[in-house]
Structures are given as structure tokens and as C-alpha cells.
């Protein structure tokens, strides 16, 4: 989160050099990633089999945030940058400040599926039009506004220096649809202004809606089914009511009621840290599993580092690791909090998403070995049978 927080502190601005543009895109990667642990916690703390509508809605947003992260990496690679995701500086500490938003917003914490969690989700996805307009010299107000300044900066730079001087990245560093799939929209290679603008549009539209509507543009861009933008998908769950076909962003949903059972979730103490669990190491296995979770999360980011750093096929190792993290999350949520006081309040254990240097070091050998064993070459079939 280092880059994003530094940019945020500088206040609203538009990148004017390629170096600045790369910084902005690195910050974009960090912001997209910031949402993943928050949504993962909301999603996996739902009791399995319950709250199906909410489950699939949050899952779809989570998938699309991963798509956004990948598109941001493609953008950064396209302009000759190097994404940096496999290191501790990339990861936020929760509760985390949301960069590029109003400083009045509360910090974003890890919360179980609940009205409070959904309220946080809504804050993250709040469309530009619903946030106050930024005044020159003042701070950021929305993530959409941040992406818009990237777009403007990119367009100015291309107008000034020509596309060839800006899009200097090697094409083989781009992650394509053969490497990553399964969400609304599709990942595609970024190699010129047009594809860069499209990538930014996909990210913005899926989050906050197209042209002031509640809908994203997956139908227009990808020929897929039209669906609600993230903010409105979350608002359906929050309000317990679905949107009708003619609803507008400024009005609450008017469609049929949705079944949301807030009690069908594992309540957690989201600020729990591994250090808290360690105190109860003798009485609860939660500590060991929470440590293992963080290590595996470091593995995920390490695979992504390879995928974004010239070896897109490494995405094939990141995907199963993500599924492993889902299973590990669900196991943790099913255990009472190791602290007897918190357990007595009915709270459950939770992954802490503390990923520091030791975690990265712990997985480095395994990650390298698996990348070698998988022998993933671009254009070739994927076979992970030799990996562990």
C-alpha cells in the first residue's frame, strides 16, 4: 500500500510523466488488492449453503476485482512498468485507510457478512457521481475519480509523445484470456491507447456503472449478460431488495424483495491478529492454521508476481492457491475464537491477512520449485500434476 498511500497524501492530481503514470498504476494494483481480503472475509464467513443470492453476488464482485487487478497489471506492463505485488509493501494492514477517498471515511476493516460489512463494501464501490466533486488542490473523493485521472494522464502523454513512446512494454508480459478466466468481463492484452482506455473503462464501469446507470458494460464490451455494477449489486443485499429494470442510481431498488439472513454467518472479531491467537497456542489449533493461511496468501502473491512479471502462465498456479485460501478461510471460520472471552460472545476465528517478509521467505522455495515443475509455457496446455 506504500505507493497508493503516498499518492493519496500528495492530493488530487493527474500524472504528467510516464514515471508518474507507472506510479499511479502501481497504486491502482494496490487499491484493487486492498478490497480482496475485505470481500473474501464477507464472502467466506457466510455459512455454506445459506444466503445464496448474497454469496454469488459477493463472489462475482471478488472475481471482478481480481480481473481489475490483472488489467491494472497489464496497463502497467504496457507502459513499460514492473508490477510489484509479491512483497510486504504491497499488502495493507487492516483496518486500512481507503486511498483516493474522503479522509472522513472510516478505516476499512475485515468484517463478517453483516449489514456493517455491506455498508463498508458500498463505501469502497461508491460511484463518482455519488461522491462530492473534488475541488482543485483538495484531496481525492473516489476510486472512479482516481481511474479517471489515470485515463486523462495517459491520453495527454500519448498526445504529447506519441503512442510508441508510451506503450513500450513487451507484449509477452501481458496476461490474456488463455491465462485467466471466470468472471464478468474478460482479461485482454493492453498494447495501445484504445485497449488501455477499454481496460480503464471495464474497471470503472464494473465498479460504479456505465454512464450514470446502475448497469455495467459487460453486455456492450463483451457481449455477455448485462448486470448490475458492484455498488448496486451490494446495495441489493444491503437493502434486501432487488433493482428493477428502470431503476436509477440515486433511488433505492424497487424490485422484488431478496432473502438475506444476516444470522447465517460466522461472527468474527475482525481485528484479531496472529499474535492474539499465539497466546492460546496451547489450547487452540487456530494459531497454526492462521499462520498457515498467511503463508499461503504470500504464495498467492508470489505466483501473481511471476504472472505479472513476464510469465503470465503462472496464473495457473495462482488460481488453485486462491481456492485453497477459500477452503482455509472456511475452516478457520468454523472454529471458535481461541480467546475464551470472545468465544463466549459467540465470535469465531478468522484469517488475519498479515503478510510480511517472513511469510514471503517461507514460501519462496516452494513457489520457485512449483513454477519450475509446472513448466508453464505460453500457448501450451496447462498441467499442474507435478506441482505440490
Amino acid at each position, binding site marked *: 500500500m506504500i505507493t497508493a498511500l503516498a499518492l493519496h497524501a500528495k492530493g488530487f492530481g493527474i500524472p504528467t510523466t510516464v514515471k508518474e503514470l507507472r506510479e499511479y498504476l502501481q497504486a491502482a494494483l494496490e487499491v484493487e488488492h486492498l478490497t480482496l481480503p475485505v470481500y473474501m472475509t464477507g464472502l467466506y464467513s457466510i455459512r455454506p449453503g445459506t444466503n*445464496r443470492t448474497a454469496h*454469488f453476488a459477493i*463472489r*462475482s464482485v471478488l*472475481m*471482478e476485482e481480481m480481473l481489475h487487478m490483472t488489467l491494472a497489471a497489464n496497463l502497467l506492463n504496457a507502459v513499460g512498468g514492473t508490477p510489484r505485488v509479491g512483497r510486504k509493501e504491497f499488502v495493507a494492514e487492516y483496518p486500512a485507510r481507503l486511498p483516493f477517498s474522503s479522509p472522513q471515511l472510516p478505516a476499512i476493516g475485515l468484517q463478517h457478512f453483516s449489514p456493517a460489512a455491506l455498508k463498508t463494501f458500498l463505501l469502497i464501490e461508491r460511484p463518482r457521481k455519488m461522491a462530492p466533486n473534488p475541488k482543485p488542490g483538495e484531496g481525492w473523493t473516489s476510486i472512479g475519480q482516481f481511474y479517471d485521472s489515470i485515463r486523462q494522464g495517459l491520453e495527454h502523454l500519448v498526445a504529447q509523445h506519441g503512442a510508441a513512446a508510451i506503450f513500450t512494454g513487451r507484449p509477452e508480459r501481458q496476461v490474456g*484470456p*488463455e491465462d485467466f*478466466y*471466470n*468472471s*464478468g468481463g*474478460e482479461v485482454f492484452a493492453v498494447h495501445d491507447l484504445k485497449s488501455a482506455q477499454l481496460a480503464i473503462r471495464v474497471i470503472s464501469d464494473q465498479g460504479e456503472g456505465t454512464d450514470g446507470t446502475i448497469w455495467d458494460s*459487460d453486455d456492450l464490451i463483451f457481449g*455477455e*449478460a448485462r*448486470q448490475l455494477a458492484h455498488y448496486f449489486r451490494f446495495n441489493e443485499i444491503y437493502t434486501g431488495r432487488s433493482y428493477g429494470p428502470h431503476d436509477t442510481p440515486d433511488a433505492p431498488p424497487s424490485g422484488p424483495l431478496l432473502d438475506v439472513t444476516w444470522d447465517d454467518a460466522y461472527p468474527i472479531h475482525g481485528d484479531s491478529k496472529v499474535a492474539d491467537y499465539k497466546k492460546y497456542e496451547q489450547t487452540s489449533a487456530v494459531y497454526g492454521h492462521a499462520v498457515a493461511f498467511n503463508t499461503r496468501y504470500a504464495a498467492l502473491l508470489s505466483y501473481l508476481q511471476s504472472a505479472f512479471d513476464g510469465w503470465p502462465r503462472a496464473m495457473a498456479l495462482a488460481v*488453485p492457491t486462491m*481456492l485453497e485460501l477459500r477452503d482455509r478461510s472456511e475452516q478457520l471460520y468454523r472454529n471458535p475464537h481461541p480467546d475464551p472471552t470472545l468465544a463466549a460472545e459467540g465470535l469465531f476465528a478468522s484469517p488475519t491477512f498479515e503478510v510480511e517478509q517472513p511469510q514471503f521467505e517461507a514460501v519462496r522455495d516452494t513457489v520457485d520449485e512449483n513454477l519450475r515443475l509446472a513448466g508453464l509455457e505460453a*500457448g*501450451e*496446455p*496447462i*498441467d*499442474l*500434476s507435478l506441482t505440490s
Partner: protein
Amino acid sequence: MTETISAEGAARRRYDAIIVGAGWAGSALAKRLGAQGWHVLVLEAGNGGTETWPGYLDSLSTYYAAVAKVPNSAYRRNKAAPYPDVLDLAPVRDPEPGRPEFTANGYFVQNGRLPYGTDYLRELGGAAMHWLGAVPRMLPDDFATGTVYGYGRDWPFTAEELQPWYAEAERELGVAGNAEEQKDLGVVTDSAYQYPMHHIPQSYLDERCRTLDGTTVNDSVADEDYALKMYGLPQARNSTPNPAYPAPYRIQGAVGIPNYGERCVGNASCVPICPVQAKSHPLRLQAAWPGTVTLATRCVVTRVRKGRDAYVSGVEYRTYTDPASPVSRSYVAEADVVILAAHAIENARLLLFSELATGSGQVGRNLMDHPTILNWALTPEAKGPIGPFRGPGHTSGWEVFRSGFGRSERAPFRIEIGNWGWGWATGAPLSNVATALGLGGTPDGSVRDKGVYGPELRRLLGSSIGRQLQLQIAVEQSADENNRVTIDPARYRDAMGNPRPILTYDLDEHVRKGLYAARLVARQIFGFLEATDYTDHAPRDGVPPLGHFVHSGTHLAYSGAGHGAGTHIMGDDETTSVVDRDQRTHDHPNLYAVGCGSMPSVGTSNPTLTMMALALRSAAEIHKDLTAARRPARLRTPQHEEVPA
């Protein structure tokens, strides 16, 4: 989104084409004809609902809750549109010699010597809602077994003629495969051909079996030696898009929800249902139907209507509102072309009840399947587990017994290397758990001794389940007029009043020899793998297994493969076949019967791919028919001879 209308709505207007059945063939035909601007009505007998996401989740839950995980276990029973189930058959204890060793309850009436052990599904998407997704092409010599090997029927055209349609079908189905292997096998003749997606990785146990490549197996029945060589299986399952595929292939996700549908991750429940919709199914094609296609579900077609001359004018159908009740109302819909795409047995039933296409006397005859013999063994403990119950049903096979002159002696067979342990043969792994726990009673009715628990249970299951190897061997059954579907409306009707299919089925000597040879080959293969053969098809306590027969003093048994075919067989001669090479009935120029029913032979390939290739080929012909019928009539007699355009 598929647009559906009510039965009343469907009856109100006239269509260019009516398609009976929304399975693979019907869905593909509707997509093609609709895209060419023809107004198409698709009538589906099934209840519908699985095309929605809650409906799909309901099918998944139904499967999870089912006690017997048979192919139809994900779908609810339907009194109005009943369908056969593999659980309909029961063995007869201590059967009298010469009498059938089975009884058939349920939808089929069976009066043959042997049971027809194949099911299907009358539901939106058809039997493809429970298919495995195996899509091998047929071998070139499969199209001319009569001429080359002296048994069965020849096709009216060659494999070469079907190649472009195979390629089209593989695009519509979404096939993942290794083109180089299939070229080596001789089924893909275009040297530049690529599949839309990369092949699904071979399973761990496949790799263990691959060590036998080059090993010689003696087939004593054909008196020939065969060198084993393992080939991967082309599958209609999402994997990685192949950049070498000429037109960019876009992976099709789940139907009914915008953000779902994964690549195959080996959930191992392809039959009946893939939890992540990586397995392809016809609902995908339906989601791509243009607005010119109209679907009406819960519409059971009862008869095709005769029009003037030899033409048909449309169909009669009955609609129901409650699948649990037989109450229904009747309607008529009319069209220029009627296409039956309702499954081989259902197509035959409809033609028989409508008294159409009777010229050759072949309707309902030549019923085929792939009788499948199961072989099961435990691999040696010293070599460790082989990792069954992961991945699709099978990912590799031994193909060498499918062709060659051994076919003259015995039916050819394809050895599928099963990935699901002894699941099909013994109901593993649940049966292993039950045995270990000591569940169930002893044969004399007393309570069993206490089973094992805890670490001992874990060890036992780990050891017994982890080494299960099953070879399921599908044998070609050739066309035999005596294997047939008939009806007897006076005696056998379903709850709605439609005649039930009466099946007369047996295996001829050529097929029986094929099954026997397959059993002997499997035994040798187990030997090479140092696996202990547990295969046992002998009667136990007087109860024979289903499909039991004795050949050369050996107890054998076969299962149905779900590959019903050959009831309206294709040919150029109208006196010996029901449909022509375009699947148009010889007797009625605007009545088509499409599907596996048209196939003169099934070779040793799962038939869906070939059926789809035929359907797409027919779609082009039907388009020509419809276009020709709309050319303006000539109003004046020409003054001089015109050269036709």
C-alpha cells in the same frame, strides 16, 4: 436468455420449422436455422427450470441428496413425460434356464432375452444434462463395416465427408483435445486441425497406465496381437483456449448467472452434473438462440400430423402444468418442416404412433447401444495409491482394439481407463465405507459384527479406495433388425396416454465375442500392472448381475452406456432405411428424424459428436429446403428453354 412461451402461445401461429426436443441436436438445429432467419418452434417435453441459476442449484442439491448417484439422480421424476432409469431393472433370483434373468419396471416395457440397460432424460437439454462429455470421432472404417469386415451396416457416405461437420460440431460443443494424438489415431484427417481448447490433463492413474505403452496383448478371440498405446480423450469441457485454433474461441461460462462457469477442475461428478458448469451442455446453445427461435417447455408431442400428399403439416402436443399429475390439454402447431430430435427411442415411438415413415418397415428396428463390460482390480499396495476419484470420468483409453481385422471375428471395443475407482462396478467409495463400518445386514438377515473406526477405518479406506482401478470397455453393437422398439397402445401407455416404448433386445454372437475378448484383454492388462483382478460377473447367492450371460464357460455381464441409437436408420435405399443421408424421411419430404437414431453404426465412439455433426449437416439441408420452398412460383410458361441458374 432463452425465451419461452406457453403451449397456448405456441399453438397460435405457423412456423417455418418445428423441432421436437431441446437436446444437443434440437438445440443446435434451432440455433442454426434461427440464425438464418427462420421462425422455429422448439417443443420440449421436460419441465424446464435448469436454465436458471436457482434451477441449476436445485439440480445440484437433488444430486447431492440422492441415495443412488445414478445418471438421472440430479433430476426430478416426471409423470407427464416419463423416462427410463437404470434403477428400473432388477435381477431375477434363481432364474429358470432360457428365461430372462431380469425384470423391467418403470417406463420401458422389455420383452427381450437381455435387458436394455440404457437410460435417457426428458428434460430441457435432454440426456446431455447427464452426459459425460466424451467426444471422440468415429474411425474411418466404422463407416463401412459391412464392406470391410462383413458385419453390420455401411453408412451412405464416408468419414471424410463428415470431417468438416465434425469440426463444426467440436466448435459448438466446445471441445478440449489434443489434435496431434487424434491425427495419429486417424480420426482427424486435416493435418492443420486444432481443437478449440487445449486437452484436459491426463490423470495420475493414466500416467501409471501409460507405462504399458508398447506392451503386446494377445486377443485370443480374434487370434491377433495388439501393442498397447494410450491416447487422451477429447472432451466437451472447458479448459484453456488454444491460441492455435484459427477463429478465437471464447469459453462459454455458466447459463443463468453472469459470473460463473469455471474450467474443469476435476470435481469428478460430470455424470450427472458438473458443479461449476465446466462441462458443456445444450443450455449454452439455447442461451445463444436468436429471437426467431421460440421455446415451449412442458409440451409433449404426441403425434406428427399428416398433410396433403406425402407431406406432414405439423404436430399435436399435450401440455401439463404439474409434473406429478397426468392432467393435460391438447394443441396443434403447424410448420413447413417438422424435425424430430427427441432421442432415438422417442423418435421411433413418435413415428410408430403417427404411422409415418412406414415404407421400409425399419422404424424402431436396429436399436443399438455400447454394451459395456466393467473390469475392476486393486493395484499393488507396494506401488502406492493411484489417485482415483479425481477428474472427469475418464481422460485416456487404449484404442487399438477399435480397428483392424479382429473386427471380423468379434465386435471392436474401446478401453476406457476409469478415473472414478470402482464407482460404476461396486458403488465405491460409499460401498467401501459401508462395508468398513459394518453397515447393513448379513445375507441371512442378522446384524453384522461391529466394523472398524478411527485410524483403522482411515487406513483401511485409504488402502482400499486409493488403489481402485476400473477399466470400462465399450463394445460396438451393430445394427440388428431384431433389436427393436415397438408400441402397443392398447396395452401399454404412460400416465398422459402416450404409448410406452416396448423394447426387444439381445446381443448377437459377434457382440458377445467382443465382450468376452474385452474381458480377457482386461485380465491381461491387470496382470501387466501387477494388479489383483476382482472382477466378478458370476451370480451371487442365486442372483445374477444385470446383463449377465455366459460365454465360453465364463460368466460375463454388461451395462448400458446410455448410447441409444439406430431406430430410424440412414441409407440411400428407401426399402431398407428410414431416413436419407440428410436425415430426411424417405417417405415424407418435409419430415426429418435427427439424432443417434439415424446412425447405421456406432463404432466404438461415444455418439454425441457424430450426432451433432449430422445435425449441423442437416441444418444446412433444411435451410436449402426452406429457401427452395419460398422461391417465387413461375406464373408464365417460358417461351423457350431456360438454363436453370
